[in-house]
């Protein structure tokens, strides 16, 4: 088995991203069901969204800055250059949207969601936007990974890799 620091970073990035999406879904469910009894739990879940998203940001950012250039060169030489030019370029900048929303969520859940319909509606919107944009980003990540894979099988990039 040969698991490198690069691999750990990449899977931590993706894994914590998924966990942040699940935590946002938890906030969405709690906001739908808002009551005095679950208010503290909702705040904790919102805090976890921020925390998990930040870990995903830092790990993904470190990987992107230090390790991605090699993969990028391979993708661009391979049969799926759009995995970088469209998917990675969009993903790396789209990521900041759920990140900003994840910073906003704990601020929002300090409101009394069980008695304030506007705050509840806003929380539902923000949590769902994190879930949907997060899923889009996870999907883009898989296309980028596949872009590397098909590039490795491509005769021209096979030579570069060896």
């Amino acid at each position: 088995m040969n698991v490198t620091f690069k691999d750990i970073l990449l899977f931590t990035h993706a894994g914590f991203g998924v966990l942040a999406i699940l935590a946002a879904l938890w906030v969405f469910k709690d906001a739908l069901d808002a009551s005095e009894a679950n208010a503290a739990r909702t705040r904790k879940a919102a805090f976890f969204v921020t925390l998990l998203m930040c870990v995903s940001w830092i790990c993904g950012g470190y990987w992107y800055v230090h390790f991605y250039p090699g993969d990028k060169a391979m993708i661009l030489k391979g049969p799926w250059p759009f995995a970088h030019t469209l998917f990675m370029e969009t993903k790396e900048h789209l990521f900041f949207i759920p990140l900003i929303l994840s910073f906003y969520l704990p601020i929002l859940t300090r409101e009394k969601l069980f008695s304030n319909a506007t705050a509840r509606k806003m929380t539902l919107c923000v949590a769902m936007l994190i879930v949907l944009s997060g899923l889009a980003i996870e999907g883009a990540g898989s296309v980028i990974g596949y872009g590397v894979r098909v590039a490795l099988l491509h005769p021209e990039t096979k030579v570069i890799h060896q």
Partner: protein
Amino acid sequence: MNSDDPNQLGRTSAAFGWAAVVAVLFNSALTCAKDAFKPLNSLMASLTGHHWTTHGLAAIAVFFGLGLLLSKLVPAGKVPSGHLAGILTGAVIVAGLGLVGWFFLF
């Protein structure tokens, strides 16, 4: 912090909600600007070592800076929040599709 009016967000939530609207749109605008104008990309890269790092820090700074500014400077009850959920959703859709469209077309 909390609003007594059940149809309004508290001052901090409303202020940071508007800050989020501006920050997500700023994020997409900065992406297009640095992609179209390479000296800006180089300047951003020179600040932290990578344009993406500077970009992320700038987007977060806009969110927290504007949110804090609005929540401190605008009097309580004066930060409108009635349609903020719809406006934020619209901003995220425009910003997200704007990014996809930019990298698809250019």
